């Protein structure tokens, strides 16, 4: 018996070592850091314990800018990408020919490198001294004045960031929604059709309730993912996001943590990361409460 129990834990040992060292310990430590005041990177000592780090972060204009950007990004991309994914999935499930081809093509952005493809979006939207860029050329056909989407006004930069984020997150949502739609029992549709139900009504009364668990799963993970946005912004606007006014909360955490000169400020970074975590947790709880009311079966 002794031998047997030892054996199980022995097989688990590597996993426990890795997870303990790089997940459990850091998780506890991040809370410790966030309450330690005046932490010194080199000597690894702190002067005291308190809430100063939180107050510093909350009074940092860069952090507030990052919070504003992140909330706009979430408010735009989560509804837009979910609705768009639903429309595309409905289109996909209504056809048979070319369906697999479309599905495969739509999934391509998922495996592509965010940083690399972001550069393509950058040159498409960029307006330089010598050339207006392809998007501006297209817009001028409709009589729109050229806009610098990369170094220009705030709304233009935010628009590109939202568009690119939607482009990046859609593959996952389309994939999950098409498989949810495919798993709805044909009988329901047949029964509805026998009753002469209209297409719109079938969608509202059969399809939507049947896929509502998937929809809420996508909305919840969509919120979480959008709150953690960072790489997309780097790809479009470069690493100096504070200067570009395009920083996100996660970007702020890394900015504070990483310092060219060496150390950086893990205490401030921890406080910011925990604030983000609390925001995400709150939103997720609200989502779960709403979903309890609306998810059928």
């Amino acid at each position, binding site marked *: 018996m002794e031998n047997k129990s030892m054996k199980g834990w022995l097989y688990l040992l590597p996993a426990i070592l890795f997870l303990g060292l790089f997940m459990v310990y*850091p998780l506890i430590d991040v809370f410790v850091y966030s309450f330690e005041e005046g932490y010194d990177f080199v000597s690894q000592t702190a002067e005291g314990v308190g809430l100063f780090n939180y107050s510093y972060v909350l009074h940092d204009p860069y952090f507030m800018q990052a919070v504003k950007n992140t909330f706009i990004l979430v408010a735009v991309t989560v509804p837009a990408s979910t609705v768009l994914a639903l429309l595309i999935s409905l289109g996909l499930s209504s056809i048979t020919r070319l369906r697999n081809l479309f599905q495969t093509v739509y999934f*391509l952005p998922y495996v592509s490198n965010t940083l690399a493809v972001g550069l393509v979006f950058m040159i498409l939207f960029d307006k330089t001294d010598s050339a207006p860029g392809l998007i501006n050329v297209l817009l001028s056909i409709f009589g729109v004045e050229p806009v610098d989407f990369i170094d220009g006004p705030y709304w233009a930069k935010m628009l590109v960031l939202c568009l690119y984020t939607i482009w990046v997150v859609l593959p996952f949502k389309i994939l999950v929604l098409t498989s949810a739609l495919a798993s709805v029992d044909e009988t329901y549709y047949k029964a509805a059709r026998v009753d002469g139900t209209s297409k719109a009504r079938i969608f509202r009364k059969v399809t939507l309730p049947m896929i509502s668990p998937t929809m809420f799963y996508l909305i919840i993970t969509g919120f979480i993912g959008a709150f953690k946005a960072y790489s997309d912004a780097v790809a479009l606007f470069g690493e100096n996001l504070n200067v570009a006014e395009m920083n996100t909360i996660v970007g702020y955490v890394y900015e504070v943590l990483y310092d060219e000169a060496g150390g950086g400020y893990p205490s401030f970074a921890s406080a910011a990361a925990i604030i983000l975590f609390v925001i995400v947790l709150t939103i997720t709880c609200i989502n779960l409460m709403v979903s309890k009311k609306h998810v059928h079966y």
Partner: protein
Amino acid sequence: MSKIMDFDRIEKRARQTALIRNIVVYGLLGLWALVVLFPFYWMLLTSVKSQGAYASEIVPQLYTLSPTMQNYLQVFTEADLGRYFANTLIFTVLTTALMLGVTVLAAFAFARLDFPGKNLAFVLFLALMMIPSELVVITNFVTMKNAHLDNTFLGLILPSVSSVFYIYLLKENFAQIPDELYYAAKVDATSDLKYLRKVMIPICRPTIVTVLILKVIECWNSYIWPRLITDDPKMFLVSGGIQQIRESGYGRDNIPAMMAAVVAVSVPLILLFLIFHKKIMAGVARGGTKG
């Protein structure tokens, strides 16, 4: 007689609406396919335009009649792209191999062995799936930096190994293997490790391959941790490297060369995807999320 006419008309109208609906649906789906594919076409196109030709285009041309491979040569010789590739390859292979070893052993323990505290341990493992990486990165950064593992492969790899989700995925698959096989093997005095190697791994190969591919994609595209722990451009991975090409000013001056780098970085994963797209999509649909 008029009744029959009516049926004809109704049928005709139904066919017409179906046709129009089909045209609209295919049209919109085609439009979205265009939106997805266009950036890939554009990177490919720009990467084969010569720098001079690109700079002289005020309105960008949608095709080129004189493609050149010069940019690819340049970006590998002038911009150190080869080194970024080698770094990424080493990082990906080692991380994936380590992850696989750790994952298979843990999944085997949870699926096949009995030991006290197993259920509690499994629940704790699952709870770890909910921890956002942003929270743990901070301490990991301080730990690795203080251990002087910044700018080393060890520092890059170690925090990237553990993936609770893959342990869960593989455990579920292992658990489906009938117990009788295990008892039969025990009667024949086969050791646990041999049973794992000769029976479980071959049976679950499809899942293991899926896990492997997903991890390779994750490693190849990883940016945040490598960017934090390496500040020496000699240690950059492709994501950081491509950012470096842009930030250093080289890419902004020579956009075709930058696009050649973008194509080079994208091609390996696109090839992987084209070969394994069914496996990748099935694996992701089972519960993967990006990053």
